[in-house]
């Protein structure tokens, strides 16, 4: 049973232009997949559609065989590009909020990770620095035992040390029964963490897809180099 499946997915916004066009693919469990492409090519749109925030214009999306909706939201753990929590809560209140709504939330793991990063759980979220807020968000998302993790640009705008921490957290969260999907434009940083990749094109199509190491074996080039080639201006 594929963790994620898209069938002839189309998405257009009010302007009428298609951001995603006739997208069909299937992702099995136990993979870390990179959804790659230049800015504005529809990566975030695809992620938001799978997360249930956007409604497809045409086509279907299934998580674990279930059409995207209320029940798939308990299977999917989504990390958006922006910080999304209200500022009046304290860190521990936010942890309780997650624990309240998500049955698969691992409170101990969350507190452990917060402790590892010396984040004050009693602090009000609005007092935290941007980088710390992003880490808290990542910790909450990764502390869920979900089937599908959707990480939208998890390391953009983050310093190199934090990047390593984030990638390490992603890897340590790996589980053969779940799949992690990462969008990024910082390919060289993320490449060694990815099993597979999908290149998205401006037409809203999948331009290329495959195994990350196979690219090197077949072409002697890194994924980053291949990307530059494919998207040459």
């Amino acid at each position: 049973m594929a963790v994620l499946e898209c069938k002839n997915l189309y998405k257009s916004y009010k302007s009428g232009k298609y951001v995603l066009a006739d997208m069909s693919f299937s992702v099995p469990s136990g993979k870390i997949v990179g959804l790659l492409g230049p800015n504005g090519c529809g990566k975030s749109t695809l992620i938001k559609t799978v997360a249930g925030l956007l409604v497809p214009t045409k086509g279907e999306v299934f998580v674990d065989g279930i059409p995207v909706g209320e029940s798939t939201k308990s299977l999917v753990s989504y990390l958006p590009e922006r910080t999304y929590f209200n500022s009046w809560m304290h860190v521990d209140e936010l942890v309780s909020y997650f624990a309240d709504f998500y049955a698969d939330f691992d409170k101990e793991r969350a507190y452990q990770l917060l402790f590892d990063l010396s984040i004050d759980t009693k602090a009000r979220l609005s007092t935290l620095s941007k980088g710390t807020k992003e880490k808290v968000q990542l910790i909450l998302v990764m502390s869920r035992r979900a089937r599908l993790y959707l990480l939208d640009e998890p390391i953009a705008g983050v310093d190199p040390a934090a990047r390593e921490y984030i990638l390490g957290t992603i890897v340590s969260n790996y589980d053969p029964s779940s799949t992690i999907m990462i969008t990024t434009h910082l390919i060289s940083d993320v490449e060694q963490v990815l099993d597979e990749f999908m290149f998205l094109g401006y037409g809203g199509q999948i331009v290329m897809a495959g195994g990350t190491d196979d690219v090197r074996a077949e072409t002697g080039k890194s994924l980053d180099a291949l990307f530059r080639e494919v998207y040459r201006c």
Partner: protein
Amino acid sequence: MLGKLLKYDMKAVFKYWWLAALTTVLLSVIAGVLLSYVIEEDAARGVLEEAIAIVGLVISFIGIFVLPLVTEVLIIVRLYKHFFTDEGYLTFTLPVKKHALLNSKLIMAMAFQLAAVVTVVMDVIIILFVGMLCDRIKGIDNFSSDYGEPLFGELSADAWGFGILYTAEAILIGLAYMFVLSMVIFLCLTIASVLTKKHKVLVAIGLFYGANAISSLFTQIAVYGTDLNGVFMIFDSVNNGVSELALKWSVAAQLLIPLGALAAVGAGMYALEYYLLDRKLDLQ
């Protein structure tokens, strides 16, 4: 899940609301004292003291009667932040039905609107009570004779029977009105968020004024249409020779009209709001 959502919605608004409500209680105590001071006849006081007292009274009254407005603002802020800002990413990925999200906000809104009304009523009672207390202390009796008796006198006549029926209908109409008001506000915010990305608040305010204008129009038409004169005819029933009982029943029946209308309008708005949240909200 509705219970959980409601818990967080109530907490979020109550955090600020309790302070506003408490402030009005304090203001009503002050108002009671000042009122007793001001209506005291033959008292030796200067123009300045009287002016200050009156200003204090006015401010207190404004502070008390502004509570419903403050309540609406708090409700709006909570809805807006939770649905239509970046927080929406968290809200709309929660594993809950959209109905639950909407209902939680609606119940929270009506609960606080009701609480605000109850608080204001309580405040008025406190003003009267404190005023009477001050009078007792000074050994005079202005309040009871000038204000207390006439008010309470009217209320106790026909306290049972139709009084209860009308009160019940009035409460229901009040609730229906709150329902519609909440839905109007929700719809203004939602439509604004669906239409624009940048100027949601301005558009929402514009829509709200538009809605107000339209509803005033409807109210005018409704007033001409229904026969609300029946209410005043009770007190003239002797002169008209129409049975008083029949009149009272007819008023009770006529009150059902606004109740039904409000409920229907509210239900229609609820359906529209749900549709917009479900299908049309493209978060950015």
